């Protein structure tokens, strides 16, 4: 025995730096490890072999593997806002001061109340919660079940760390930096390809780091170092250690998650677009199915070698090996060499290779062929195993604290499956291998099911040369080292029968799924592999079944009398490993979450105390509250001021599409329900645009600036969308039309000066345009100068007042607005916001798209049916207006509404029922779409949609506003200045 005192660390060996001790804590106790350790190896070295409680049964669990496939040792790392749940202990590099905690035991890992579930496990079979927690409802149990079954606590604080994102291109992305990946990188790198070599471990070398290879008469590490050095010297080769490939998507787009080795950023999320992908990701060792195969101290045989060679740790003193293949024998040889006694190898096969027998015999290790494990004992640590012959004859017990198991090796085909490669079952190795390759995607080495380093290398060189040739490069011959010593390399795996047992046999450790659950699923008819998976939840934990899926196929095959291979596989989906949401979200956080568009005079609005909100991406003032004023009071004041003096409204986001060319009028005539051809130069018309289904998609005025030059005003949110729609028709349907479209929305600021004193104010600002009512009447426009600036003045009104929309170059917006406020001071100039404008337009009964219309509204529904139907020429959506559903006279149509009791305001969203004395529940006949208190009429006003509303003028309807019921009268939409005298003044 050669352990350091009180530890499982050997006196010598390993790739750790014994000169650099590191202190860390686990569940509050302080331990020490070395630079080069992982959290798993350091805990094992300290004889901490029980790390967690299982997901469902709260059974004690230890470390099962040495890699990312770990199903048991999921720990919480870090504190405060940097606490990270469900970290795989073998993948956490040890660092000074690291704080780790187990996450599924309460009140403590050692004494867990949740263990009662284990003692009463017969009550909780697969799917028990679907059957049990139905009364009174699942939700009354959900919180308890979630607390019992949780896997770590989510963070509640904001992530304090910085994350990066990188977009990259390369010729060849190599996944896996083991011997095959390194060889491929050498071939491709020397041939001049832009190569990216990715490995999830801290350094390259893969299996060469944890198996006893000797190359060219030296430790394999020397070859790894020389190759890594050469690759690092090649400018067109990018080396990415500590990087996990998360997913492979269409056209080889691949995502990577890189962990930082230093400070500055924590993780970097890569999106790579390689021309070719080479998967050299190796294989994952599988466990074995036998009774009580989940105890701490039961570990993959390859993981035992890994902890021995990399960290000089052997987590046991009395070791037994159980296997169905030759590779596990290497564990016996390596442990013996390290001075650890292996008392027996239990092999399910009857025929054992002569060389293997000889090796064990030479070392005095007992070989039990044709035998298997029949049971285990030991609660928080393995104490003893029961062995039996395959035919059931008991062979007795063996005292043991480490049971190394190997059920064969399963190629890491996950990315290959993401890329939609198909798999085939390989009987010899009892695992799924790549079959049909996706385009521009190759697989080599043990990821391809190939066995033996020499074979893997020659396959890799061939594949990489073919890749080079396909990308027009000539690969030079690669001289690979001589393999002087290699571990036992064998692909042959025997299928061992599994059968029903009284004691539980785990098939998925991470999700606590047993063979008994599989039996229940099959008994209840879930024999399709996809149904089976969902019923038992096997493979659905955070490890995604990396050591559980194959077991599930074996169990399902055994229970349904099928070969494992004919059971089929479930679908591997990205990500291969969990990806931090912060890394995916990296730059799109906080104020960068979505673009915020600011008005060109934003600073002036701030000075005016604008109450900003988001309107279709624009930050716009709803109103401008004065000191001591609520927003509602401000809105009422502003709406009054516009009708009695003059107001100014920043309308800059309004869409401004310029349409030019000899066919401009004909072009626009095909979009509007209104006639564009008859519009005279200098005149303005209001129009509606439909989609081909006859649904209103935008409204606004269009201006004929010149014979072949139009200005199309769209809604503020519609500018980009309408421009794109116009472009589609122009380019795809009418490419012969000579029309140029230009979305100038952000080039022009637009200020509406509205109210009885608007003309006086515009005159004071100074303009060379004749703005008299005769020369520039309502619905006309003129170009000229205002305040010395190039301006387009359009006389339209959304407020119902005398109104000038003044377009000036956006860069002068702030100065212009300040001038308006100064010049209008003695006229009572009042800046008004969107909510105030909404009051004004509602008084006038003007339609507001998106409030009063939705994705079902047609021109008929808003009072434009006659115009739309009677237009002589065709336009987009016209034909749809004649479809039966659009001719139904009971469609919901826009109407004005007035409450029967004027003290009872109407609420937007309240439902309408025809008739006065209606009972609920009932099918709705419409609803209130817009409503406010009118300061000018001094009563509540509203618009709403109502079934057959256009012929119901004067009718009383019932309003259902949540718990309240009251009545309203159908009235005209326009309720203020019905003769439109004001806007024409």
């Amino acid at each position: 025995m050669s352990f350091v005192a009180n530890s499982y660390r050997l006196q010598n060996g390993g790739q750790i730096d014994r000169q650099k001790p590191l202190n860390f804590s686990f569940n509050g106790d302080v331990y020490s490890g070395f630079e080069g350790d992982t959290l798993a190896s350091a805990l094992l070295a300290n004889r901490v072999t029980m790390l967690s409680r299982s997901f469902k049964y709260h059974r004690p669990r230890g470390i099962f593997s040495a890699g990312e496939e770990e199903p048991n040792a999921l720990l919480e790392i870090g504190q405060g806002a940097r606490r990270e749940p469900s970290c795989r202990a073998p993948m956490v590099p040890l660092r000074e001061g690291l704080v780790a905690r187990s996450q599924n035991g309460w009140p403590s890992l050692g004494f867990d109340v949740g263990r009662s579930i284990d003692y009463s496990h017969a009550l909780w079979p697969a799917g028990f919660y679907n059957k049990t927690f139905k009364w009174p409802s699942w939700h009354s149990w959900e919180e308890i079940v979630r607390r019992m079954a949780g896997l770590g606590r989510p963070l509640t604080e904001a992530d304090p760390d910085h994350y990066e994102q990188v977009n990259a291109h390369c010729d060849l992305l190599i996944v896996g930096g083991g011997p095959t990946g390194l060889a491929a990188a050498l071939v491709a790198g020397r041939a001049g390809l832009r190569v990216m070599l990715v490995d999830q471990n801290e350094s390259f070398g893969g299996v060469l780091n944890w198996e006893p290879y000797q190359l060219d008469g030296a430790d394999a590490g020397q070859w790894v170092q020389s190759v890594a050095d050469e690759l690092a010297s090649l400018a067109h080769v990018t080396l990415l250690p500590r990087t996990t490939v998360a997913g492979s998507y269409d056209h080889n787009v691949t995502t990577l998650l890189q962990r930082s080795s230093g400070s500055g950023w924590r993780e970097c999320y890569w999106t790579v677009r390689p021309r070719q992908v080479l998967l050299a990701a190796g294989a994952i060792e599988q466990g074995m199915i036998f009774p009580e195969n989940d105890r701490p101290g039961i570990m993959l045989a390859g993981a035992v070698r890994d902890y021995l060679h990399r960290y000089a740790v052997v987590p046991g003193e009395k070791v037994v090996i159980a296997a169905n293949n030759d590779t596990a024998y290497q564990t016996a040889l390596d442990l013996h060499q390290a001075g650890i006694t292996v008392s027996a190898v239990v092999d399910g096969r009857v025929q054992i290779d002569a060389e293997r027998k000889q090796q064990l015999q030479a070392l005095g290790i007992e070989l039990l062929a044709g035998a298997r494990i029949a049971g285990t004992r030991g609660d928080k640590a393995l104490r003893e195993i029961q062995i039996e012959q395959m035919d059931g004859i008991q062979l007795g017990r063996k005292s043991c604290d480490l049971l190394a198991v190997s059920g064969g090796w399963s190629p890491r085909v996950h990315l290959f499956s993401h890329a939609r490669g198909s798999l085939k079952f390989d009987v010899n190795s009892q695992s799924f291998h790549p079959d049909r390759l996706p385009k521009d995607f190759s697989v080599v080495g043990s990821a391809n099911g190939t066995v033996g380093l020499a074979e893997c290398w020659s396959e890799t060189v061939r594949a990489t040369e073919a890749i080079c040739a396909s990308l027009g490069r000539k690969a030079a011959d690669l001289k690979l080292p001589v393999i002087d010593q290699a571990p036992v390399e064998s692909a042959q795996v025997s299928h061992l029968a599994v059968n029903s047992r009284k004691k539980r046999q785990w098939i998925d450790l991470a999700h606590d799924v047993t063979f008994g659950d599989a039996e229940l699923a099959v008994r209840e008819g879930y024999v399709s592999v996809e149904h089976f998976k969902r019923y038992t939840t096997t493979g659905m934990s955070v490890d995604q079944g990396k050591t559980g899926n194959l077991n599930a196929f074996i169990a399902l095959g055994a229970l349904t009398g099928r070969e494992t291979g004919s059971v089929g596989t479930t679908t591997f989906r990205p990500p291969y490993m969990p990806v931090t949401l912060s890394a995916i979200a990296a730059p799109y956080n906080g104020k960068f979450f979505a673009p915020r568009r600011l008005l060109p005079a934003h600073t002036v609005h701030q000075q005016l105390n604008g109450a900003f909100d988001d309107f279709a991406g624009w930050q716009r003032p709803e109103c401008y509250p004065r000191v001591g004023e609520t927003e509602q009071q401000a809105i009422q004041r502003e709406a009054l001021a516009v009708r009695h003096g003059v107001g100014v409204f920043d309308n800059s986001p309004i869409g401004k599409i310029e349409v030019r060319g000899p066919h401009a009028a004909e072009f626009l005539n095909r979009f509007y329900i209104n006639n564009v051809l008859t519009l005279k130069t200098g005149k303005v018309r209001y129009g509606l645009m439909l989609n081909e289904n006859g649904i209103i998609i935008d409204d606004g005025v269009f201006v004929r600036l010149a014979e072949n030059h139009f200005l199309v005003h769209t809604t503020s949110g519609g500018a980009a969308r309408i421009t794109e729609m116009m472009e589609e028709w122009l380019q795809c349907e009418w490419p012969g039309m000579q029309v140029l479209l230009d979305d100038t929305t952000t080039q022009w600021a637009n200020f509406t000066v509205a109210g009885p004193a608007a003309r006086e104010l515009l005159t004071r600002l100074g303009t060379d345009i004749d703005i008299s009512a005769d020369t520039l009447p309502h619905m006309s426009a003129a170009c000229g100068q205002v305040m010395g600036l190039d301006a387009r003045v359009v006389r339209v009104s959304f407020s119902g007042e005398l109104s000038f929309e003044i377009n000036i170059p956006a860069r002068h917006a702030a100065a212009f607005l300040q001038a308006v406020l100064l010049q209008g001071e003695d006229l009572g100039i009042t800046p008004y916001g969107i909510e105030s404008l909404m009051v004004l337009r509602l008084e006038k009964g003007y339609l507001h798209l998106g409030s009063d219309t939705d994705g079902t509204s047609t021109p008929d529904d808003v009072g434009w049916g006659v115009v739309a139907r009677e237009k002589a020429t065709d336009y987009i959506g016209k034909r749809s207006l004649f479809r039966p559903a659009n001719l139904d006279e009971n469609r919901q149509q826009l109407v004005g509404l007035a409450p029967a009791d004027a003290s009872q305001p109407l609420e937007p969203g309240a439902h309408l029922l025809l008739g006065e004395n209606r009972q609920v529940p009932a099918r709705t006949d419409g609803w209130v779409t817009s409503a406010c208190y009118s300061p000018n009429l001094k009563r509540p006003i509203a618009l709403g949609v109502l079934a057959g509303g256009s012929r119901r003028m004067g009718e009383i309807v019932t309003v259902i506003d949540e718990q309240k019921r009251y009545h309203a009268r159908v009235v005209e939409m326009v309720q203020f200045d019905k003769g439109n005298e004001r806007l024409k003044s």
Partner: protein
Amino acid sequence: MLRINCPWCGTRDQNEFRNGGEATVLRPADPQSASDDEWADYLFYRNNVKGVHQERWLHSFGCRQWFIATRDTVTHEFVDTHPLPVATGLGKV
């Protein structure tokens, strides 16, 4: 994410583009004389080919040009992309 070869700009990521559906949909020459069924066929019914078909794409965040792509709807492989045909005349709505 698809990689799409814009005939004007070269190969770019899918998120620069917008798919415009099947390129072979024909608008009835005289909509007012089309039956409701014919009009519904134009509005709603698509071939939904399993395999290679032609579709419209817009390079929205690039040259803003529409083009025609020949794509395999099973493998997502782009067989070809080419500009829209040059045409004269005003066409009809």
